[in-house]
């Protein structure tokens, strides 16, 4: 299997200063050659990437000890070896096809600036204390950062952090330097480096974060600075900013919300952002600006929760610890919050809102990403470099308490190794990848690189799988992210095909997750096992397919592909289709059980993990949905 790439290296503190890197980038002029990469008629190959990555330019990442800038992040993503902030040699077993660095807009570069500032200039005793803690060493630096984040959530940051003019000036400079580096690493056709930032909207510790992804290069993107949510603190303000960018430059931009699971009931509300009744215009605007949601990442998985989906035995992946409160853990989770936090429920809510308003605000596709704060886009369980640099490989990270600003709550093992985005683009370019996101022809995985195809249309049959069914899928149906056009009397049928990660585990099963709204406006969901391994032996009974089995050997942190199947394909027609009811269908592809990163850590560092630690799991892919509306495609 994949060779673990962490050397048994002693964690030396490398701690490069980044002053030099900034100089380089300033010296760089010119843009990447505007290579004309032809787009294919339809997407032929899935591209793998990370749409959510932080470098030392992010306030928190630097405070947590990250000393790697955008340049190292880009080199790592394209497959080169870099030395992590704690001195460990790191490399991806397989390069990514694209990456977007999404540093926090708020205070971009400010922790680094504070760290590098002459001590004499710091008058505020609180800031001086943090400054000294940061300089004392990595452990104290993490503690200082946790205090800063808590102060931010509680609105008690010292004035120095809140000077909007100085902050805007610094952001402008850091941003432009950053764009120059990204431009240098963008190689159309080979490796796409896109431009973006994170709009870290937080309302009282509740996560309403969005990543903002540009379609364009530095010539357009440098005409704007990233939007600071401190001053512009509602999603509508972000959409205004996006409109202004498009009007000013003629470019294009979209936003991707993430971690709805720690929004405490705010991410997918039945009202608009301000709590007022939702209008059709608001719903349309949201769907247009936010065509994709990040469903899985290091800070948990937001697909489904057992509380909402008690009959789904695979719900609850990556929810442990994340369902106890909001991001900052300054407010506990209440039962009524769950429905606005999980993606499956949001998709259902979207149908109900569409029935009422004529527009669906939650018609979004799905991607996974890492949200690494280490500059390292690591999504594999056996090569996990931690949420932040204070959590790079080491013996204490699995069992330690991780809650920002507290010593309670969430623990290291509850963090996932992170996900990736699969994108069905027509070329490996910024424009083609962005366009695929905009039309939702994308999917999420929790790390493994399974290939997943999903087409919906009227009249697909098993015979289609004997021909060039991909071509047929596009010609006679719609791919994931699309809306069914069935014609009069048509019934939906789906081509479903999944392939294991060529360097990973076999597949257990493919499920169709269906949600619909009935005539009375009631919301429903149902999960259909549509194809699975060893179908003759594993007969479904009572609507359930027996478990695939388990080959995980925890003593060796290994598994074997002696169960499951490498490829699962079928054509499935909805046996319960009712043409009167709005519905969506998405795929959930499950791998056989494999060890989680704490299991690899336990082996590597000879740890004794507590009984509560999840050491094996069935990793998965989630396709973007295909929607059905009695009125036909919107």
């Amino acid at each position, binding site marked *: 299997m994949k060779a673990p790439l962490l050397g048994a290296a002693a964690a030396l503190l490398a701690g*490069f*200063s980044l002053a030099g890197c900034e100089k380089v980038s300033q010296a760089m002029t010119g843009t990447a050659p505007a290579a004309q990469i032809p787009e294919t008629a339809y997407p032929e*190959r899935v591209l793998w990437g990370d749409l959510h990555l932080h470098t030392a330019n992010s306030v928190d990442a630097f405070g947590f000890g990250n000393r790697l800038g955008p340049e190292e992040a880009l080199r790592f993503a394209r497959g080169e070896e870099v030395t992590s902030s704690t001195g460990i040699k790191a490399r991806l077993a397989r390069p990514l096809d694209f990456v977007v660095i999404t540093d926090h807009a708020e205070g971009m570069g400010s922790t680094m600036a504070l760290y590098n500032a002459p001590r004499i200039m710091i008058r505020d005793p609180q800031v001086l204390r943090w400054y000294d803690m940061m300089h004392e*060493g990595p452990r104290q630096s993490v503690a200082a950062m946790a205090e800063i984040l808590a102060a931010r959530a509680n609105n008690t940051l010292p004035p120095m952090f809140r000077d909007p003019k100085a902050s805007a000036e610094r952001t402008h400079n850091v941003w432009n330097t950053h764009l120059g580096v990204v431009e240098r690493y963008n190689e159309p056709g080979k490796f796409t480096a896109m431009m973006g930032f994170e709009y870290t909207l937080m309302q009282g510790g509740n996560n309403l974060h969005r990543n903002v992804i540009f379609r364009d290069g530095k010539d357009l993107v440098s005409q704007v600075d990233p939007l600071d949510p401190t001053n512009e603190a509602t999603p509508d303000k972000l959409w205004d900013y996006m409109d202004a960018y498009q009007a000013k430059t003629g470019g294009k931009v979209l936003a991707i919300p993430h971690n709805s699971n720690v929004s405490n009931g705010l991410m997918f509300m039945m009202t608009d952002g301000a709590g007022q009744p939702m209008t059709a215009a608001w719903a349309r605007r949201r769907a247009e600006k936010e065509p994709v949601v990040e469903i899985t990442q290091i800070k948990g998985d937001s697909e489904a929760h057992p509380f909402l989906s008690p009959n789904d035995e695979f719900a609850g992946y990556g929810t442990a610890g994340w369902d106890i409160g909001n991001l900052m853990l300054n407010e506990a989770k209440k039962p009524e919050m769950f429905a606005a936090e999980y993606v499956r429920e949001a998709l259902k809510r979207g149908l109900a809102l569409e029935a009422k308003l004529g527009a669906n605000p939650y018609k979004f596709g799905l991607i996974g990403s890492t949200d690494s704060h280490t500059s390292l886009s690591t999504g594999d369980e056996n090569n996990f470099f931690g949420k932040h640099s204070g959590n790079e490989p080491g013996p204490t990270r699995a069992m330690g308490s991780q809650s920002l600003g507290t010593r309670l709550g969430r623990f290291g093992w509850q963090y996932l190794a992170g996900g990736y985005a699969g994108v069905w683009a027509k070329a490996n370019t910024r424009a083609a990848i962005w366009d695929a996101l905009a039309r939702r022809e994308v999917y999420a995985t929790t790390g493994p690189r399974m290939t997943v195809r999903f087409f919906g249309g009227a009249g697909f049959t098993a015979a289609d799988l004997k021909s060039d069914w991909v071509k047929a899928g596009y010609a006679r149906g719609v791919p994931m992210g699309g809306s069914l056009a069935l014609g009069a009397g048509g019934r939906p049928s789906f081509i479903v*095909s999944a392939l294991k990660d*060529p360097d990973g585990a076999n597949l257990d099963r493919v499920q169709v997750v269906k949600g619909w709204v009935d005539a009375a406006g009631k919301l429903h969901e149902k999960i259909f096992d549509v194809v699975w391994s060893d179908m003759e032996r594993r007969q479904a009974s009572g609507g359930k397919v027996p478990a695939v089995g388990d080959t995980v050997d925890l003593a060796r942190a290994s598994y074997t592909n002696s169960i499951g199947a490498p*490829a699962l*394909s079928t054509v499935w027609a909805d046996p319960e289709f009712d043409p009167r009811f709005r519905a969506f269908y998405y795929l959930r592809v499950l791998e056989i059980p494999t060890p989680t990163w704490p299991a690899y850590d336990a082996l590597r560092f000879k740890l004794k993990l507590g009984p509560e630690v999840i050491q094996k799991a069935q990793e998965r892919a989630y396709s973007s949905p295909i929607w059905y509306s009695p009125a036909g495609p919107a």
Partner: protein
Amino acid sequence: MKIWSRAGQVLREPLVHFLVAGAILYVLLAGRPPDAGDRRIVVDEAAVGQLAARFAQSFRRPPSPSELDGMIADHVRDQAYYREALRLGLDKDDEVVVRRMRNKMLALAASEAQVATPTDAQLQALIDESPARFAPGASYTLDQAYLGADDAAGRKRAVQALAQLRAGAEPTDVALPAPLPAHFTDQPASVLASTLGDGFVAALETASLQQWSGPIASGVGLHAVRVMRRTSPGAPRLADVRQAAENAWRARAAQQAQDAAYKRIVAGYDVVIEMPE
């Protein structure tokens, strides 16, 4: 009695410990001759100007006379403590100081290297050193039929399927459905490797042209493959890979500058390591 108890109190004061330790260090390090320059703390016009400018940068206004006096006094205090601490050698076993100094040295070395711009000759030399790193790798045009899992039953089926293909059957007659292209046109080896794994690509290198080969094992199972065209890359041309080469050159130049700077520095020292028995 009273005097003794007060003396005891005094001896428990950390400040006293500090002063006593300092005095001992001072005696131990008395070999360091005091430098006359070190004994003068001069805050000249330039230094005052710098203090005022830094203040203005932070607070967006010039300092008032009393604020400036305060900053100067603070600066003098810093210098007095700093120099005295150095004289006492207090920096020597302070890990934070040691790390700070190391980081400053690293930053210096890196910034020197990074202002440089590589010449074409330097870039060409970098490419010649490891052409494979910059070459796109071989490209393939091929037909592929997926034949299922790589197990005993699968192998048997695959052999039959290959016989059928060689007898003229259509790939769609024997292929099992999988989300894989049936044709790859001029695809670089790296793309094939990311789709099917390194083992598959290795097998392609020796596959005969224009005929069905296999079963070839990949990371996802077995395949029948007909390689139609194999294009071996020529040496990478600078014009095609300039950007990647420049990025690589810069990254390496920064690393080399750091390494070289360290070598220069450490060369000035005799390093003696005494391992414990």
